[in-house]
């Protein structure tokens, strides 16, 4: 007995509420379904329905008792709790009423009419009690969090704010800190279930703190109760999130530490605060500052299998750049027994939008081939080093608006190409070792396009 006295017995049993509560729900719904089946199909399930109601009611009583024990812990929204409690008790009571009517169907003539009504009311009460119970456990926004806009509007919720994930415009509270609280803390610290009298749903509630006072000391993570709790040993009884819920990741902890150190601002942008490399990496982990490359933004239909095959038959190597991308990488390896002709390149035109990486190094490519390649709008990487191209060919390439990487080493191009190359708006890396571009040409490239890395060898 002393063992039981040492712990909070009420709560020990109370926690079993959420386990037991699903039994009456199941039995009562089963009983109603059996009743429907036996009515429509004349199946002999009537007796099963009777027992279903009785067992459902009995488990309902247990669930109600356990529920009252759990509620004694406090920390729940009183209105929500009251609704849940009384609809739950009513459901249980009415399950017994329905059972009583069912076994006395032959005794009282009015019972035959009252019985179906009682079942309908039980079902409605059960749904209401269940819904409010869910709100107590998960928070009232849980159910419709991912609902489409119109449904959220009907339910009177404010339209979901689209989270800003760009590093220069994301808000430090709304998009980073609030996001962490929502995913890891607010299951228990919400309007319906403010455990420890703490809510973490908006700036006011966070600053208000909980039953032990403030949880955040701006500028001093070590003195902030919230930070202390999430960084304790996970086996410590005060560790948060408790009850085996997913702990904060290393990166999330780092973001909270950084936010509190910087004075826990609620209105500033991420970019307004000092950003170390480590913090940038941490922010990336929660989705802020992940650069969406041009390639990732493209959503093209896949190339037809026939096109794919006809390209391969010409001696090209073709593959998708990733397992789930429709963009293509095409190469024509040296030691290919056949020379690379303009006709071969023309077969690539059928997939011209999808080709983004093209390697024709050390092939017999000539200027006429480049006029075909110039029509590949999504080309980002082009390797044509060691080929027979000249300035005439480079002239064609100026249409490649998305080209980022261009390898021209070991070709006959001269300073004449410099002006064409400078017309490529996205070019970031250029390789011109062993070409006829002079020192002046290189200087012009480097001076005119400071963002461009020009590699001219050693």
């Amino acid at each position, binding site marked *: 007995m002393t063992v039981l006295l040492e712990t909070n017995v009420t709560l020990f049993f109370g926690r079993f509420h959420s386990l037991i509560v699903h039994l009456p729900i199941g039995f009562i719904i089963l009983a109603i379904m059996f009743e429907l089946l036996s009515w429509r199909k004349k199946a002999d399930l009537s007796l099963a329905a009777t027992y279903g109601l009785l067992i459902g009611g009995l488990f309902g009583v247990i669930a109600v008792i356990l529920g009252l024990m759990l509620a004694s812990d406090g920390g729940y929204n009183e209105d929500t709790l009251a609704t849940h409690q009384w609809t739950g008790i009513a459901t249980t009571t009415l399950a017994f009423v329905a059972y009583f009517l069912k076994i006395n169907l032959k005794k009282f003539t009015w019972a035959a009419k009252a019985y179906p009504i009682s079942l309908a009311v039980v079902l409605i009460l059960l749904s209401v009690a269940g819904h409010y119970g869910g709100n107590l456990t998960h928070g009232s926004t849980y159910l419709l969090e991912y609902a489409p806009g119109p449904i959220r509007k009907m339910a009177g919720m404010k339209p979901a704010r689209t989270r800003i994930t760009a590093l220069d415009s994301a808000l430090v509270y709304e998009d980073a800190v609030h996001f962490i609280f929502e995913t890891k803390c607010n299951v228990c610290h919400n309007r319906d279930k403010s455990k420890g009298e703490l809510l973490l749903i908006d700036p006011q509630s966070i600053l208000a703190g909980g039953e032990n006072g403030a949880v955040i000391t701006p500028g001093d993570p070590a003195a902030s109760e919230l930070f202390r709790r999430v960084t304790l040993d996970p086996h410590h009884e005060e560790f948060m999130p408790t009850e085996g819920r997913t702990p904060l990741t290393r990166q999330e902890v780092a973001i909270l530490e950084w936010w509190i150190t910087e004075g826990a601002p609620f209105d500033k942008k991420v970019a307004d605060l000092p950003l170390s490399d480590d913090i940038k990496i941490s922010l*990336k982990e929660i989705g802020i500052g992940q650069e969406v*490359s041009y390639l990732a933004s493209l959503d093209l239909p896949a190339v037809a299998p026939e096109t794919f095959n006809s390209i391969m038959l010409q001696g090209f190597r073709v593959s998708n750049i990733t397992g789930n991308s429709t963009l293509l990488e095409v190469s024509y*390896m040296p*030691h290919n027994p056949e020379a690379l002709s303009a006709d071969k390149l023309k077969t690539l035109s059928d997939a011209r939008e999808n080709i983004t990486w093209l390697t024709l*190094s050390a092939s017999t490519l000539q200027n006429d081939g480049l006029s075909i390649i110039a029509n590949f709008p999504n080309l980002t990487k082009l390797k044509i080093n060691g080929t027979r191209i000249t300035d005439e060919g480079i002239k064609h390439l100026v249409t490649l608006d998305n080209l980022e990487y261009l390898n021209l*080493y070991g070709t006959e191009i001269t300073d004449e190409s410099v002006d064409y190359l400078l017309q490529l708006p996205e070019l970031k890396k250029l*390789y011109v*070792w062993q070409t006829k571009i002079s020192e002046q040409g290189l200087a012009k490239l480097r001076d005119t396009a400071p963002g461009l890395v020009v*590699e*001219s060898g050693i």
Partner: protein
Amino acid sequence: MDLYNEAQKRKLEFTTRRHFLKKCGTGLGGIALASLFGSDHLLAKSPAQALSNKALPHFLPKAKRVIYMHMAGAPSQLELFDYKPKLKKLHNLDCPKSLLEGKRFAFIQGTPKMLGPQHDFKQYGESGTYISDILPHFSSIVDDVTIIKSMHTDEFNHAPAQLLLQTGSPRAGRPSIGSWVTYGLGSENENLPGYMVLVSGGNNPSAGKNAWGSGFLPSEYQGVQCRNSGDPILYVSNPDGMSRNIRRKSLDAINAINKSQYEEFGDREILSRISQYEMAFKMQISVPDIMDISKEPEKIQEMYGAEPGKASFANNCLLARRLLEQGVRFIQLYHWGWDMHGDNKNNSVNEGLKKKCGEVDQPMTALVKDLKQRGLLDDTLVIWGGEFGRTPMRENRGGRVMDFYGRDHHSEAFSIWMAGGGIKEGLTYGETDEIGYYGIRDRVHVHDLQATILHQLGVDHEKFTYHFQGRDFRLTDVHGHVVKGILS
């Protein structure tokens, strides 16, 4: 015994008890399934297709190729990259007990003395990275590489540590990282093996050929080792009287026989054999030209310090660059002889290590520079390092003072460097304590390195698995975190 009975007997010999039990359990279901799926769906594809993982790469790769320069024997980080002035002050003092308690060393016994760095360091490049005087060439490319100083491993003997590094497990039998990569991503050049290995320094690494073995993966994914002097690959040209046409016809006949054997026994290795014969046939055309480093301009040969015909790390570096250019997916260069215990002059951290560095410094630097000027460094991941580090204490084999300065094996801290393939430039990552004994910041385990290599190739190391003996295997087993801090 007549022919028929002999054939029957032979066939029965292939049916083991295991076959019988398996057939009892799955036979009937198998018949039903076969009619559902169509019978020989496996054979309809070539071996490479049958296993190629269509979901790969998982995400956009930064690197298309990898070259791993493994310094077998484990170079001393304290003489090359991890500068510890404090250790200099402690030179010749007794090692404190706290560093020895509960530790096992390969050779150190009793209380060893501390050993200060045996070479001087200077700062180089815009990054101001400290590099030892015995790496004069490498110091010119510090702004192109990331040096990780906080590597650590679980093993302190060469063979298991090399296996852990190359296969993810200290015991033999797992596929090496190159096998995993070529199995997952295939080769970029169908006329060359996707995974090639070059060895120099006089010996194979202690882990032997397991270091580039394919483990439980089909054996066509094992590393193809080239000879280090003379013809890199033997018998690559047809003998007199054998035309390419006749070779083709005889291969067709052999393949037909092999295929019927496969249909009878279902041994996956028969398919590997077919594809290896085909690979050899294709290599006859490409290999003589690619393997001939004397075709390189003299200037380039000088840059590497290569001398065609000799067995050297320099030649291997130059050859490796030619192979990378051809789209070989994974290349390993093993250079043996870094195990500087101090038991003789050639094994000392002063004389011996300096000599060893002289063998690799110029070629490894030339490789990075050459890849860079050809535009290959962007998508080629370069890694250089040993299988573990060396102790800050002087080795005292047998409890005595040895004739030369040497260091024992050390698993807690060592340095490697990486370049290209989406790795940051001019970065020093991680930090060790004042004497270089433990990593104290951003420690990187061998499994983390493997996870990072796969990540740069666009592969999620947690999703990339192979089912074998009833469970899914990964290169990193259940470990490994991608080292995000070194990614550009």
